[in-house]
């Protein structure tokens, strides 16, 4: 029970500080993997990101349900998801009327200009963690994985293929993983 409450508290904090949508929740979950290895590993987190990208629903919500289920079963998933959405529910209800004025406030505008590059850095740091476990095993670079990474990075940026849904690249990588035995 204490463990469940602790998890809900962690997801409440994530919901409170993850500003900018789904991707912004990833650094917080990477932090969970660091502080609570008994709940999830970085490899688990990566699996969850792939599953969340390939299934319907907002990524942040999917990730919370998945982590909660992983740790405490069905009710863990429900509890984690509700904890994640609770802070924004409270905040939006409290400030719903003043929101338009808030958005035009120069202090708010300034804060968002400095916040966005910092959040970009946070997501990059989470990407770096997944990058390390995906491309290296026991300190050695996996050549096949490195080649696949470069190819996928190219295709997700190339103007002709960048609009394709992430599910396509996840499927390609799964097939490559099976064929070349990553």
């Amino acid at each position, binding site marked *: 029970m204490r463990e469940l409450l602790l998890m809900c508290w962690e997801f409440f904090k994530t919901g409170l500080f993850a500003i900018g949508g789904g991707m912004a929740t990833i650094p917080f979950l990477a932090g969970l993997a660091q502080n609570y290895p008994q709940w999830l590993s970085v490899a688990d987190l990566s699996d969850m990101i792939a599953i969340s990208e390939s299934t*319907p629903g907002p990524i942040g919500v999917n990730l919370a349900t998945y982590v909660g289920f992983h740790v405490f079963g069905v009710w863990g998933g429900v509890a984690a998801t509700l904890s994640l959405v609770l802070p924004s529910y409270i905040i939006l209800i409290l400030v719903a009327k003043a929101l338009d004025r808030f958005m035009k406030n*120069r*202090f708010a505008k300034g804060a968002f200009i400095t916040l966005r590059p*910092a959040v970009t850095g946070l997501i990059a740091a989470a990407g770096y963690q997944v990058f390390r476990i995906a491309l290296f095993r026991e300190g050695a670079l996996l050549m096949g*994985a490195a080649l*696949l990474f470069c190819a996928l990075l190219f295709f997700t940026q190339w103007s002709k293929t960048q609009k394709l849904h992430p599910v396509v690249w996840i499927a390609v990588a799964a097939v490559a993983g099976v064929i070349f035995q990553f």
Partner: protein
Amino acid sequence: MRMKLYMKLFGAFFRIGLFTFGGGYSMLPMLQREVVDKYGWATNDELLDCFSISQCTPGVIAVNSATLIGYKQAKLAGALFATIGVITPSIIIITIIAATLQNFMHIAAVAHAFAGIRVAVAALIVSAVIKLIKSNVLQQPAEDGKQGPGPFFKRHWLRLLLFILSFAIVAFFSVSPIFIVAGAILTGIALVGKAAA
């Protein structure tokens, strides 16, 4: 009568949750169809405003949009039904997947597939970061005259420094992202009105 509106809100956002893959901007067409075209709960402009507010407030964008539109229609209870509606499909689908996946993870081919998928996830995140660097770090914030936060924010090095610091602190020292978010907000507030010297 009120219950009917609550169920409509729940149903509309349930469908939005069910048919949106990936979140963020990918949900906008579905929101437009349900909220603007089908029920007339908001105009297209109101929806876009609501969407940008959702991006700037904490939490998941889709959920925040649901809360705002639900609140606009039927106050607290409306917000509650819309919010629960948008998260219910995820809870059901992800629980089923998570429950079945555990039975397959020990198969060697499945393990190899997920090792491959990890590479794709790394590439997708790095790719998203490249796009975010272009829009959030390298691009000048929009000019809005006297209402703007001040000329200091035009400096590229300021945004670049924040990006690098945030990355390095979290990647190489285990500092909670909470401190980075709070620090970046405070930095922005402290710099408002600073003249470009």
